[in-house]
């Protein structure tokens, strides 16, 4: 069962997240609560997100679609302390990386897929840097965890607010900032996801991929024959 209708659907989904991240970094950098290396990271990563916004927007236009616009307002938690900011950045960057990972399999256009993987990698890199700053494990497991569309939107919904990522820029989101980070319920726990994903991938993939490939009628010898030529 596909999560996405087509590439344009995936691209606008990604663009929704990139708008969120780009705006997030602008506000964080402007807050002045980060200093030194961390302010440099935020400044640079913000430029990356802005570049992602631009690339996705242009791609959508080139494909004849209508790029979703940035929201006028996002319900970010208060960027009041360095600790709260870094914690939030970990959550959002992990979420973005997981979102791209889950969506990649449905991308049809090969050039779009390459770009999606390139962006996906950078979001993972962002996440690992902020995890290190938060004194968290920067790479949670041998295999990263995908976060499916429904879970991404559930996690992002409080931030996107009532407009929920709608394209209109005129309607502000209702409600004010709750001053908290994403709610624990509904927000996929990246640590758990990674542990589970790692077990699943390592354990099942080995058997599953092999089985799946066999099932697609590879007519090979039933057991690997050592054809080493003597």
């Amino acid at each position, binding site marked *: 069962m596909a999560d996405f209708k087509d590439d344009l659907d995936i691209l606008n989904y990604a663009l929704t997240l990139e708008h969120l991240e780009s705006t997030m970094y602008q506000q964080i950098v402007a807050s002045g609560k980060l200093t030194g290396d961390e302010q440099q990271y935020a400044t640079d990563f913000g430029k990356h997100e802005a570049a992602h916004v631009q690339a996705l927007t242009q791609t959508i236009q080139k494909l004849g679609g209508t790029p979703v616009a940035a929201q006028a307002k996002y319900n970010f938690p208060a960027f009041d302390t360095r600790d709260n900011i870094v914690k939030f950045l970990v959550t959002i960057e992990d979420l973005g990386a997981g979102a*791209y990972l889950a969506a990649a399999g449905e991308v049809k256009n090969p050039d779009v897929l390459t770009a999606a993987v*390139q962006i996906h990698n950078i979001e993972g890199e962002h996440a*690992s840097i902020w995890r290190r700053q938060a004194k968290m494990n920067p790479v949670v497991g041998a295999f990263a965890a995908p976060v499916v569309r429904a879970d991404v939107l559930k996690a992002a919904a409080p931030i996107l607010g009532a407009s929920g990522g709608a394209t209109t820029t005129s309607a502000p989101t209702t409600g004010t900032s709750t001053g908290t980070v994403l709610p624990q319920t509904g927000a996929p726990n990246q640590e758990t996801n990674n542990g589970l994903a790692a077990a699943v991938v*390592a354990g099942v993939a080995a058997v599953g991929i*092999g089985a799946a490939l066999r099932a697609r009628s590879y007519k*090979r010898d039933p057991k690997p024959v050592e054809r080493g030529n003597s």
Partner: protein
Amino acid sequence: MHDRYLRLVTTEFNRRTLFKGAAGAVGAASALAMGGNNLFNLGFGYAQSVLAADMGDLDILNFALGLEHLENVMYRQINASGKLTGEASDLAKMFGTFEQAHVDALSKALTGANYANIAKEGTYKFPTFDTQDTILKFLNTVEPVGVGAYTGAANKLKDKSLLGVAGAIVQVEARQLAITMALAGNKTPVAGALSESFTADEVNTKVKPLIG
């Protein structure tokens, strides 16, 4: 081209082996399974200009496995050197377990698919791991090759379900890279908005000096 990089990543490449393998495998019904002009159809005397696009999915996984073997041995030797301390030491140990997990997963998948000539651990020519700086600098040249290889291969995979595993691995390689860049003191540990993407040929060129 397949010949060249298979020889690079597997110390025991044997063309006759491969041809014999093709004879047994040529009965495969599905074009998807055989991947069009893939290695097994080509036998002897194929043109050196075979493109990465002609690689079957299993060839791609095997190519990745070759790189993972290299990285696995690299981390093993780095961790054995005793030249990393503190955070770098702890993280390198952890990253080493991940590379081993990548080797294991890809090896098992290829075994399960009865792929012939699964890439084995090779011998490599690494620089002397004599200081933390040297080690981190080297990691920062090798990790991007892995990231670029998976990224370049992504849109070549015909079975889209393999993107899940490839993506799960490449994100980890990318995360590791950003960390080793930061540990090396880079103020811009994430180099740009898009990670690099390499063709198999480009990967070969970069990796060739490291193959013993």
